[in-house]
């Protein structure tokens, strides 16, 4: 993985957030209670651990969702998103404290993530508690999920952007990019695709312009560092590629997400899977020990780093290899003859035990996942998906969807398949469309009248309007289907879906390397009269040039939304004089890929694969509004999904 060589250290963002958090906690003197909005707790756990809270006087942490907070604390600090329903909750809490038989006097502070809004102030005012609370901001935006992934952790961004038409998250992302630029320098090149992506780039450029209005030249260059650590930014709008998330993710990390759901790098597992030795004294059947445990999944676990991006098909083999190696390492102790050899072994022991623990965990998870993948419906669904994306739209598979509905299969499985079919086929024929809608409503309930409208609005599941089917053209132009994919020795990003290359990542690839990853065929090469190794140098040349859509405009035209390429001039460092040149950065180029509306684990894996392919000439950092999969994406469009925006 490219992790260590990254010149660009996302941990800076974590440190920034951590410092600000400390200021937030210290703003109230003495002991206090912390009330956390559930959508903030994920990112918060990525920047601080519980001991930090403790060190700064936090006695207890409360969930904001609880309707009433009974506390001895004289002060409560709320950390929450600026959402209306949360303001009402705060008001509820305060009123509960003030009324009742023995009213308690508590000092309230509310810190909004990432900023305070007038709407919320107004709601607090209307609720009559505005005078009771001290308001502040906690600019927690992009938090590192790993060395090469940063996320806004805005869980609802897809729905807000593409269904509700609420572009607040674009504004927040724009602000975060501005902050990023103040830390890592102005990004000289920004390209992107999609309507909201365009909105975002316009906003970023406007903010920079407006900032330079209010600051004079010397402060302007003080705001932005002299060198740009990020060479380019590629913004991909989720609506450009809705096909990819509908497919079942087939990497190790992707499958874990499909089965268990990964939230802010944590997965909740049954304790038996974790394989922690049961403490001898405790009774084995105590109910507490059966509570799911949170396990972090990140590059801190070396074995996981090896496994996460692999196609699940090869994970088993690798695990047994590792098991053998660890076993051999343990056996070394028998060979230790001298004291110093023994000492050396003991030194390694700690590491070995950690490795063994991690091996146990992943072997257990892999076993569970294997069971999951052997399920008949899983395989039938997978087969249908593979055929759909390859353009084979057989009736067998459509009938199978019908069967799933008849069997009252989980709604999400059904909807994901229906959406995928609709996406690759340019919609359903009117009769079929109405048939499926009726079946869905009769089986899953009338409230899905709303869900179906929402799905149509986002373009996920709709009636065919014209015979034209852009997907089939996109499939050819971007070489989405690769037949001879080798999961063991992948040579193309399509390994993450066993033969289907995600559109989004293919776009990144064509922008950065000017090629869709074709392996030049000897015959084709000589026929055209060019040397057979033409492919390799052109890839290298592509890595040097800034990313561009050049040459692929036609394919882009087939996908929804505009595409754009912008350049930003770095600030003028004339005032710095001679010091200017010494700051130029050497090393690989860094490209940030930003997903607006969320990205999947497989897409992250595919981008990491790209970085490996480019031989250290270009590193990639992934930024996203949140991590999604097909299920969370479709769930967001449910008619009854709580409207928690604004």
């Amino acid at each position, binding site marked *: 993985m490219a992790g260590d060589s990254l010149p660009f250290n996302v941990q800076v963002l974590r440190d920034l957030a951590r410092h600000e958090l400390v200021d937030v906690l210290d703003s109230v003197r003495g*002991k206090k209670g912390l009330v956390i909005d559930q959508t903030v707790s994920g990112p918060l756990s990525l920047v601080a651990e519980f001991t930090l809270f403790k060190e700064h006087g936090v006695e207890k942490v409360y969930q904001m969702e609880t309707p009433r907070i009974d506390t001895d604390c004289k002060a409560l600090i709320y950390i929450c998103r600026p959402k209306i329903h949360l303001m009402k909750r705060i008001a509820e809490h305060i009123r509960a404290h003030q009324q009742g038989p023995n009213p308690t006097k508590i000092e309230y502070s509310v810190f909004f993530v990432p900023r305070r809004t007038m709407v919320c102030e107004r709601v607090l005012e209307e609720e009559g508690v505005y005078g009771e609370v*001290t308001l502040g901001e906690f600019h927690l935006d992009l938090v590192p999920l790993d060395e090469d992934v940063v996320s806004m952790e805005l869980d609802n961004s897809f729905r807000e952007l593409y269904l509700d038409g609420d572009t607040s998250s674009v504004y927040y992302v724009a602000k975060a990019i501005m902050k990023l630029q103040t830390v890592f320098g102005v990004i000289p090149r920004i390209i992107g695709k999609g309507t909201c992506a365009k909105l975002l780039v316009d906003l970023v450029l406007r903010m920079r312009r407006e900032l330079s*209005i209010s600051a004079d030249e010397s402060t302007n260059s003080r705001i932005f560092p002299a060198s740009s650590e990020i060479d380019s930014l590629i913004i991909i709008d989720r609506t450009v590629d809705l096909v990819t998330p509908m497919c079942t993710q087939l990497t190790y990390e992707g499958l874990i997400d499909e089965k268990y759901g990964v939230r802010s790098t944590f997965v909740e597992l049954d304790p038996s899977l974790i394989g922690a030795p049961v403490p001898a004294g405790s009774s084995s059947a105590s109910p507490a020990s059966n509570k799911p445990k949170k396990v972090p999944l990140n590059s801190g676990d070396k074995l996981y780093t090896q496994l996460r991006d692999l196609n699940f098909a090869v994970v088993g083999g690798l695990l047994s290899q590792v098991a053998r190696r660890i076993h051999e390492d343990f056996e070394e102790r028998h060979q230790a003859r001298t004291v110093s050899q023994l000492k050396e072994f003991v030194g390694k022991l700690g590491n070995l035990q950690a490795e063994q623990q991690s091996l146990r965990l992943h072997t257990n998870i892999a076993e569970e996942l294997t069971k999951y993948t052997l399920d008949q419906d899983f395989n039938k669904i997978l087969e249908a998906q593979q055929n759909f994306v390859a353009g084979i739209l057989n009736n067998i598979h459509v009938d199978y969807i019908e069967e799933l509905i008849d069997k009252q299969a989980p709604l999400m499985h059904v909807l994901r398949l229906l959406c995928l079919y609709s996406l690759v086929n340019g919609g359903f024929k009117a009769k079929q469309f109405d048939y499926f809608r009726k079946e869905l409503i009769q089986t899953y309930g009338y409230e899905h009248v709303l869900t179906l409208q929402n799905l149509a609005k986002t373009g996920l599941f709709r009636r065919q309007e014209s015979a034209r089917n852009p997907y089939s053209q996109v499939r050819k132009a971007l070489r989405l289907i690769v037949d001879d994919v080798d999961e063991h020795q992948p040579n193309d990003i399509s390994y993450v879906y066993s033969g289907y290359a995600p559109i989004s990542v293919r776009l990144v690839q064509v922008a950065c390397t000017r090629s869709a990853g074709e392996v030049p065929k000897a015959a084709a090469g000589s026929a055209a009269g060019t040397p057979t190794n033409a492919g390799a140098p052109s890839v290298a040349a592509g890595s040097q040039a800034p990313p561009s859509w050049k040459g692929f405009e036609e394919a882009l035209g087939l996908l929804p939304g505009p595409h754009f390429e912008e350049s930003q001039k770095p600030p003028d460092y004339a005032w710095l004089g001679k010091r200017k040149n010494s700051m130029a950065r050497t090393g690989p180029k860094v490209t940030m890929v930003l997903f607006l509306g969320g990205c999947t684990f497989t897409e992250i894996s595919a981008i990491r694969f790209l970085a490996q392919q480019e031989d250290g000439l270009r590193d990639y950092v992934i930024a996203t509004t949140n991590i999604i999969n097909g299920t969370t994406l479709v769930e967001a469009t449910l*008619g009854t999904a709580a409207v928690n925006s604004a």
Partner: protein
Amino acid sequence: MTDGVPADDWNLLHDRFYRKIELYDLAWKDVDLSKFMVSIAPFGGPIAMIRNDKKVLALQSQNVKPIMYIYTSSGRLINQFQWDKGRIVGMGWTNTELLVCVLEYGSVRVYDIHGEFYQFSLGQDAKDYGVYDCHIWESGVVALTGNYKLVVVNDLDEPRPKVLCDPGLNQAPSCWTFIPPHLTLSRHIEVYLSVGSTVLVVDASNVGDQQVQNGPFSRMSVSPNGKVLALFTADGRLWVVSSDFQKELAEFSTGSATPPLQMTWCGTDSVVMHWEDTLLMVGPFGDWIKYSYDGVVSMVPEVDGVRIITSDKCEFLQKVPDACEKVFKIGSTDPGAILYDAFELFEKRSAKADENIRNIKPELADAVDTCIEAAGSEFNEARQKLLLKAGSFGKCFLDSYDVDRFVEVCQVIRVMNALREPDFGIPLTLQQYRRLTPDIIVNRLVNRHHHLLALRLCEYLQIKKDRVMIHWACAKIKKSVEDEETLSRLIVEKLGTDKGVSYAEVAKTAFQSGQSKLATKLLDFEPRAGSQVPLLMSMKEDEHALTKAIESGDTDLVYLAMLHMKRSLPTADFFRIISNKPLACSLFETFCKQQDIKSLKDFYYQDDRKLDIANVTLLESCGLEQEEANIKLELVKSAMKMYQEDRNGAFEAKAIEDQVRLMGTQIQLERDVGHSFMNLSLSETIFKCLLLGHGNRAAKLKSDYKVPDKRFWWLKIKALIKTQNWDGLEKFARSNQRFGFSGIIDSLIKANHISQAQHFLEILIKTGGPEKDAHAERYIALLRPA
């Protein structure tokens, strides 16, 4: 003046020199400071004074309203205004040169130097019991109320009075002081109260008794860095301790039982006390210097000394800056002194100059630095010049010297000299200048309407002059008598239209001074969309404000503009304005879904969006609980009507018609069967009927709602397996051959009924046909006993 030896008027305090510099002969006449309450702003800031009504003279009638005077440090009147707001308990300056006056009954007024103000209250305790005393620091106020509670306001821009932990006093402390938040470890204010023989330290959550024995104290003063506390005891001793009372630093007996009128710090290592006619400075080792004065003076601590205002002079008392000491100390052998000496010899054309230079050759760069720094620390212009020349002279002998430093100090000296002119009266030292930064100096100048000097300063130091021009334009508008046309031309000429100067502030001023046409005109030049919004709103240019807010991309601004309109405009107009702005509509819809369903329906109704009304109505019905079945049915019915009226809602209308029918059926079923079917879908209803053994009812539902055979079969199998009705299952399988066996076998395997699955596999094999060919082998493998 240069003739005198600079060190002549230095005083030695232990091993350090102090000097007192006369900055100005004050321009005011006949001011007796003893009759006034005086507050002086630090950093060479202005002086506010008002007749002290605790010291009313017999001749003056109580009815004469006092006047608040604001002077520069050079004694020139900046502004005066009549005071008619009740007794002032205390006043002080903030770091933005705002004058804070705390009044008897807890209201606080914050004035700019032109007399414009805003006010807030210190809360109920202060209102009920009055304010006993108060202290003011750069950004906040702390007050002791009449019932001896402490109230603090940390941020004057957003005042929220907070009561500190109750010290539980029933009489006033003999004196008190505080450490401001930015100087304490905890970053929260700490208040020191002298109570009995001890000192209490109070913060937001604690009262700590410091277990001190030698109180009560009549004066307390905290050093500028917040680390040391000076206390004056009842028997006339000065006692200096670290502010945590852990370390005793000095003790000094003044021999005066009368407490000093004022006690303050000069830098961080000497304390200055003032009694009428006398100023006594005490150093850390009990050394002291005494200065004589005529009557009462007023002092303000600066970062590097104390500024003293007497009835006719402004003076500055400081520790002699290191660079000056190195150069001018009698007998100094510092390279700086030798360089200065060499330069003087050179001026006298003496060859010894060269010898001097050679002597210090290795340290010449340091010597140059020292001379330059000393130049910056001198107030006398002639001496500044000599020192700079000496530095420049030394520079000639160096191969490489970073000239930036030299240039910088020359620039700063020019700026400081200009500011020190009595007309401006801002006497800054080099250290103060560096602490204050040029940006803030520019702000202070424009606040005093010295726009020209501010502009020159910006040009000279190459900092952005926008805010000077903006401030100038605002001031111009406020004072202007010209017509709007001329004024607008004048302003646009000066501010330019292409340099990105922000016009929002200027336009706002124009609007506030009643020139709305001018305001509109000027606002058009504002380059930032977001900045235009608030003003456009107050100008009632609502639609324009909304357009600009949308342009800015800031959704919160859009909300602001929109909610403002919703309140101030007739609903119809409001809807009309937002209806062609997609972002506004989306945000309004999201907001209403949570806050105001009724408005949302009105909005859709106005626009004839029946489908959307139906959707909202349906959404409402989904949220309802079991007990509200009737309301739920009504809502679904009314949604149905709306769908029926919209020609795009044909499918939805049909689906909801079925739903209404189903809900009726479910109520009937509940009555007949005695089980609730509420909130179940059609399939679930059928399934439940099957489970309960009401096959006929299930079959009726199937035909009523035209449920396809396949779905019905699947439900049936599921129910049969769930109830483990194996005979029924077999009967079903045999009589519905069309359905096949593999579905049944799969379901059985999934439900873990292996032997039954094997049974049906046998039947499948016996029956034969394509289904057997397709699946049998797989099942055999799957069902093989492990």
